[in-house]
């Protein structure tokens, strides 16, 4: 919807991709979210120790995965931008950073709501929590840098370097529960007792839904960023005629 609106409103700017594909993906994602909600609240059983609050897990973990996806895309876009200096890769970097930060915020807010019941505290300096907060702060710095007026070439390159630096933190988040002692659960990282089959179904559907959502958001945001870049270029040309 956003991509098509963007394309309609921007005559003369090249469309960002197939609107049909975007629409199909949107419908699929919405259907997946419907199935996920059904699986989470109807099919998956209530967890014995934690009770109903455990169901936060079905949105918390896929949000973390979508965060990896966003930050990974941002770092990839930034790397290619530094090599090719093509603005479309820079737009991808910005889109990935914004979407990744959105999901990081979701992870950092839903996690404490679960922890309050499970651990008795809102926050603890567990390795995984700390490294996730660190990643969020790195990419928030990236966005702060890019939001300072019209970013010039130097700001874009510096921000790209920051995104690549942020990429280093992602494996630390993932492997922190295996390498260091902490209190974070390890039910899907091979160290815990695992999940019941209905729980796996609910989690799997949620993973698919969040992947679709993250791709759609990155896609739409990158299209808008390309158009903003094009507008800035036109403004610059008009001023220097």
């Amino acid at each position, binding site marked *: 919807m*956003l991509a098509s609106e963007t394309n309609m*409103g921007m005559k003369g700017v090249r469309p960002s991709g197939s609107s049909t594909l975007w629409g199909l993906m949107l419908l699929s994602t919405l259907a997946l979210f419907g199935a996920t909600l059904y699986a989470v609240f109807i099919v998956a059983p209530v967890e014995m120790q934690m009770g109903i609050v455990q169901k936060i897990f079905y949105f*918390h973990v896929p949000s973390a995965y979508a965060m990896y996806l966003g930050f990974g895309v941002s770092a990839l876009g930034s790397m290619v931008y530094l090599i090719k200096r093509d603005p479309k890769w820079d737009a991808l970097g910005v889109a990935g950073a914004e979407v990744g930060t959105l999901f990081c*915020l979701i992870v950092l807010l*839903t996690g404490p709501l679960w922890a*309050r*019941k499970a651990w008795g505290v809102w926050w603890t300096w567990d390795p995984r929590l700390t490294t996730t907060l660190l990643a969020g702060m790195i990419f928030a710095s990236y966005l702060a840098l890019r939001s300072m007026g019209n970013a010039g070439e130097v700001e874009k390159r510096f921000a790209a370097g920051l995104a690549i630096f942020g990429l280093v933190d992602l494996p630390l988040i993932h492997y922190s529960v295996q390498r260091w002692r902490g209190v974070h659960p390890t039910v899907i990282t091979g160290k815990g007792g695992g999940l019941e089959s209905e729980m796996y179904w609910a989690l799997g559907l949620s993973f698919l839904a969040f992947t679709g959502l993250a791709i759609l*958001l990155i896609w739409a945001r990158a299209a808008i960023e390309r158009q903003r870049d094009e507008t800035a270029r036109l*403004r610059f040309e008009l001023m220097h*005629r």
Partner: protein
Amino acid sequence: MRALTVAFVLAITMLIAPGLLAQDEAAEPDSTSEQGTEDPADERAAQFVGVRGPDAEQVPGGALLLAAYAVVWALLFVFLLRMRGLQRQTADELQRLSAEIRASGGR
């Protein structure tokens, strides 16, 4: 000579006095502990007080779950609104630039 004697006495007093005082202080807890064991009834609870505040609360799992799901949808909604705002801002800017180009006789 008298001053030297006074200084010597003072120095000795300062060296010995803290040691003697410390012994007295160390002896005092013994006497109190003895008193404490003399009357064990004082150690018993004389009243029951209901716990109030954070220790008394039952953590509401349902409310926390609802809050978590509300956070997810609210943040997604805010993000979509922001994207829509950016898109409108860009479209307006592009229209303004197009009008400017037309006015200046450019393509």
